[in-house]
């Protein structure tokens, strides 16, 4: 009989093998899905994982999609290390995009080097305030942060929809719910000319490194870790749990807000209802897959950025629903959690106890 047995020591190898194993299982399942749909699995996988990266343009798009994922994931890492289950990156992102757009449109034709920083800061502040709200609900009113952040996501989405249908709607936009295009002074500089890749990617990489340093070297990072692993020990040591909680939320919100601001000032250049294809939710998978470590997050962000591109590619090339992206992401997270069980447990084949005589 198979049974699970707790390992004496957590397996370090499994800690890093688990994401790879999960990816392999996802790919195998993916092939099964292609076959079930009567498509050639090898062709399908090629379209999903390889074709999007066949030229410079493709790599630039990958970086473009990594940027918001990295920023959101870096912020969420701070929260999750402290066991604060912030699911609100999507909402922080949307608020960042919304308020960056408000400021960008208000400043209208102004030119000058201060316009863009102001717009980005507006996004960060908006994201941080939105996250702080959930943080305060937790520290002051003991509200479960999962539920409040989810609700705040829905509220943020509706606020954004209200803005593009109402006050921010482009009067010359043929009735489409979207804002005017921003002025050039409010747009992020390109990283590689003739592609859409902008310096938002650098923000993301910087954020990942900063979070790595935070937890490896600083006392605040240490306190956050203790808070996450053992709330009572944190209280015993006298760490300020409320302030640390609020700080984690503010940082997560600021980074996701910056992601939203970078999205509207980068590839979009205006506010549209579909400003996020779910970056804030996908970032949750990035954090888990990337083991809450800087390098891991960068790799995981690249992989999940690719799933967005792969989904679009399959839609074009094989007429499959774009929702296959969400399916792959869900499968990946699923397999990851399953494989993660074997960090703490191992499978053991049990025999019946020997030398125990007879009847029951």
């Amino acid at each position, binding site marked *: 009989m198979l*049974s*699970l*047995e*707790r390992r004496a020591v957590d397996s370090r190898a499994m800690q890093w093998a688990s994401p790879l194993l999960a990816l392999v299982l996802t790919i195998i399942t993916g092939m099964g899905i292609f076959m079930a749909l009567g498509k050639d699995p090898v062709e399908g996988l090629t379209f999903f994982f390889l074709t999007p990266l066949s030229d410079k343009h493709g790599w630039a798009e990958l970086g473009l999609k990594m940027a918001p994922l990295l920023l959101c994931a870096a912020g969420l890492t701070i929260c999750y290390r402290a066991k604060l*289950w912030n*699911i609100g990156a999507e909402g922080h992102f949307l608020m960042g995009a919304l308020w960056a757009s408000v400021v960008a449109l208000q400043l209208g034709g102004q030119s000058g080097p201060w316009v863009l920083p102001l717009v980005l800061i507006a996004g960060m502040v908006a994201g941080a305030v939105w996250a702080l709200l959930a943080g305060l*609900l937790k520290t*002051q*009113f*003991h*509200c*479960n942060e*999962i*539920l*409040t952040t*989810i*609700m*705040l996501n*829905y*509220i943020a989405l*509706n*606020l954004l*929809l*209200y803005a593009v*249908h*109402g006050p921010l709607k482009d009067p010359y936009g043929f009735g489409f719910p979207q804002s005017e295009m921003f002025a050039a002074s409010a747009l992020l500089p390109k990283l590689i000319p003739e592609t859409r890749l902008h310096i938002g990617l650098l923000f993301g990489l910087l954020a990942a490194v900063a979070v790595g340093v935070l937890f490896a070297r600083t006392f605040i990072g240490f306190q956050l870790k203790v808070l996450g692993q053992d709330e009572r020990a944190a209280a015993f040591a006298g760490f300020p749990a409320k302030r640390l909680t609020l700080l984690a939320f503010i940082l997560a919100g600021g980074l996701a807000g910056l992601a939203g601001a970078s999205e509207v000032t980068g590839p979009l250049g205006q506010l549209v209802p579909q400003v996020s294809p779910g970056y804030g*939710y996908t970032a*949750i*998978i990035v954090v*888990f897959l990337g083991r809450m470590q800087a390098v891991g997050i960068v790799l995981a962000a690249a992989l999940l950025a690719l799933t967005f591109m792969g989904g679009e590619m399959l839609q074009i090339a094989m007429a499959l*629903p774009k*929702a*296959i*992206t*969400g*399916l*792959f*992401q*869900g*499968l990946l*997270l*699923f397999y*990851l*959690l*399953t494989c*993660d*069980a074997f960090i*703490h*447990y191992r499978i053991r084949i*049990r025999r019946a106890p020997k030398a125990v005589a007879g009847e029951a």
Partner: protein
Amino acid sequence: MDSVLITNVLAATVVAGTPLLLVALGELVCERSGVLNLGQEGMMLMGAVIGFIAATSTGSLSMGVLAAMLGGVLMAMLFALMAITLAANQYAAGLALTIFGIGLSSFVGAGFVGQSIDGFDKIAIPLLSDIPVIGQVLFNQDLLVYGSLLIFALVFCFLKYSRGGLILRAVGESPEAANANGLKVLPVRYMAVAFGGAMAGLAGAYLSLAYTPMWTENMTAGRGWIALALVVFATWKPERVLLGAYLFGAASILHLVLQGLGWNSSTELLAMLPYVVTIIVLVLLSWNPARTRLNTPLSIGQPYRPSK
């Protein structure tokens, strides 16, 4: 407001509250066993899409409902495998279930978007439906509304009077003590999670077969999450789930009422109402942690593995 409007609003409240009632009852049983399943949204979506597909392809609404419940149970079993057998973090496993359910339901349902179906009709119960106001509100509804009330009564009695309910509560309070008493913790939790899945599937089917008889991506619009808040609101008591479901139902149709009264506000702003109400309710309920602690099933969220 005249009585016709009041009757219509109340009847619509019951309809809007029914999916919340169903999914929250399932989650309540699940949480009473000590398992927190954050995957309600994912299970509901799967229920909605499977129910819709089964109903359109067989032409039978009851087949749709059955298939939806089965789909919900299958999803719940995936969760149970991770959170109970593999003792994974329940938060993460539930989130994974929701993300997976959103992706899978969109994928499976992609070919069915835009189709419509003849949903459940209202059935007036003779005599009872002739009672003024109440008759129309409670006794002129579709079959699933009646079903939800029956399920409520069963869950209420099960928890309060049956030995099974006693065992469920015991397992939820202390799996260690339950194991020492010879109760089978893991099977009890599996059954509770499965029931939660069936209820979420049924709630999903209610959306796609009765409430708005069609399938659209993410059509649950956060109802699975609101149900989780509802269970906290109800302090894990079924009778308060019933009350809460209709209160939240009322909040979610408030914008229709306001528009009916001639308010001319933006749809998007009014659509935020249920979410805002949820947060306000959470604040009012959670702010005394001692009270919450007294009511919360003590072992909730903690994976349990019996030692061997």
